[in-house]
């Protein structure tokens, strides 16, 4: 798509807003989304860090800002909602003149952390359960406000050093019932011929499932994508992968339901995820079958005892 490299502003550039006259100093580039480039900045004269997103297109960026504003005002009315947007997310909206052109931008809270796939690679797979849970909480919060995230992929999920999860890049957020604005092949339900591209809660849950599969078995997912022709690509390939991979086993029942769109909503999915990740500790394999080798060794030791007793008393 049109994410060809665009010239980024160097560190130290001062961005002066046209409408509010606030000045922000660029520190470095944080990343690039579908709608624009995100910079790490501080307000001139202050130390606090913010993220500043410069849009490629006024209309697209404004559309994203509208979503953020509406999320913020709605979440204010719904108190005590887990995974909602407690601190003000959107701080300022303005334009500035750069390289002879009006460039729209907005300033938001800076979220420190690493994309989820880097986090899991570094910290280990046992973190999948809890980070997955927190991500699902975020998605459920968004769904309750009447939106879906849409473009869910590892790059858009930030995890702090202590496993706190935040969604970044709201460019793909779409109203429930509308068409999905932005998506990425692998995580797109339509790409897998597994359903429509309309915004419903199950769309995010499907993307979440693919994301989890990627975190636990990226090679398998890559192979599945490479082999298949678009006409034959379908979610049974994902289901096979879930069944085959031992690392996906603990999550298999949940993933199957999400891939097939069987959860009535994200709240049920969240509850099921919780149950699943906390189940092994309680009802794991403990009362299950005694391993074969133990039975054999026990039988052997009984025979030895019998032999020893025989030799001692009867010989």
């Amino acid at each position, binding site marked *: *798509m049109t994410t060809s490299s665009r010239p980024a502003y160097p560190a130290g550039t001062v961005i002066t807003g046209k409408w509010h006259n606030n000045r922000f100093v660029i520190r470095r580039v944080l990343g690039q989304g579908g709608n624009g480039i995100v910079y790490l900045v501080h307000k001139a004269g202050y130390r606090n860090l913010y993220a500043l997103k410069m849009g490629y297109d*006024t*209309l697209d960026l404004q559309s994203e800002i509208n979503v953020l504003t509406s999320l913020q005002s709605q979440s204010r009315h719904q108190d005590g909602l887990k995974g909602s947007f407690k601190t003000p997310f959107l701080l300022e909206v303005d*334009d500035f003149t750069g390289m002879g052109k009006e460039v*729209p931008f907005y300033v938001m809270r800076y979220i420190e952390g690493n994309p989820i796939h880097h986090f899991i690679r570094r910290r280990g797979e046992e973190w999948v359960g809890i980070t997955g849970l927190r991500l699902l909480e975020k998605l459920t919060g968004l769904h309750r406000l009447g939106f879906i995230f849409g473009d869910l992929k590892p790059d858009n999920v930030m995890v702090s050093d202590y496993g706190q999860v935040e969604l970044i890049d709201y460019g793909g957020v779409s109203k429930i019932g*509308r068409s999905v604005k932005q998506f990425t092949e692998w995580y797109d339900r339509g790409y897998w011929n597994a359903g*429509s*591209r309309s915004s419903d809660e199950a769309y995010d849950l499907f993307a979440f499932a693919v994301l989890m599969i990627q975190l636990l078995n990226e090679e398998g997912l890559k192979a599945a994508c490479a082999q298949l022709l678009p006409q034959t690509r379908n979610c049974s390939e994902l289901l096979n992968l879930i069944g085959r991979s031992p690392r996906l086993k603990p999550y298999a029942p949940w993933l199957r339901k999400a891939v097939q769109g069987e959860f009535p909503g994200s709240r049920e999915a969240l509850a099921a995820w919780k149950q699943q990740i906390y189940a092994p500790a309680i009802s794991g394999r403990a009362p299950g079958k005694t391993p074969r080798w133990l039975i054999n060794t026990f039988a052997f030791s009984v025979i030895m005892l019998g032999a020893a007793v025989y030799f001692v008393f009867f010989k």
Partner: protein
Amino acid sequence: MKQILLITDGCSNVGASPVMAAAHALQEGITVNVAGVIDYGTIGELGSLEITEIAKAGGGVSHIVGTRQLAQTMQMMTRKTVVQTIQQAVNKELKTILGDGSLEELPPQQRSQVVQVVDELTETTPLQVALLIDASASMKPKLAAVEDAIRDLMLSLQAREGRSELAVFHFPGRNSTEDAVMDTDWIQDLGGVRNLFQRIQMKGATPTGPAILKVIDFFRYGTLDGQTWRGNDGEGEGMLGDYVV
């Protein structure tokens, strides 16, 4: 809203200029987008110039992509064009209200309201996209990818709230008098269509211009004639056959 999406890999070489044909389309209120498909080698300088010019004359956008990105590019171009067309209309309205005010000059608060309207219309405006496929000999290895991209586009269009329809044409036709052939009439679902391009005979000639004019006629017929063109299988093609420019 009406669009033509031309998918080609090079230069036209027969008949009327495609750039002029695209200008006619724009005049009729039909935006023309062009996807230039490359895979083996490159589109020559002349080819890529023609692609840009067709889109410019047709008020649309053009992109040159490999077959792998084709599906996403087509989806993006179609959506972008809908947004642009609506934005142009809204900007026109704004000028009459505010004297001199494009979207960029509005303060953020008002801009937000305008964009809300644009977003709403983007999602709900009825949309017709006529896909015009260059099926000259050099396109043959790419047709499977083109068909997948078309199916993918249909999926995106189906998700819209507004009524969305696709029709598919290819060119050249079976003989020199046939500039374009209809593969499917306006439809909202490709699920029942097994094989889009079963009647294709690859030929060397590339009459891009005449083919665009044909598709304009198809749009015109649909809007002129009171009775709709939907549901009458076969009739549409016959119409196309003897409707000579």
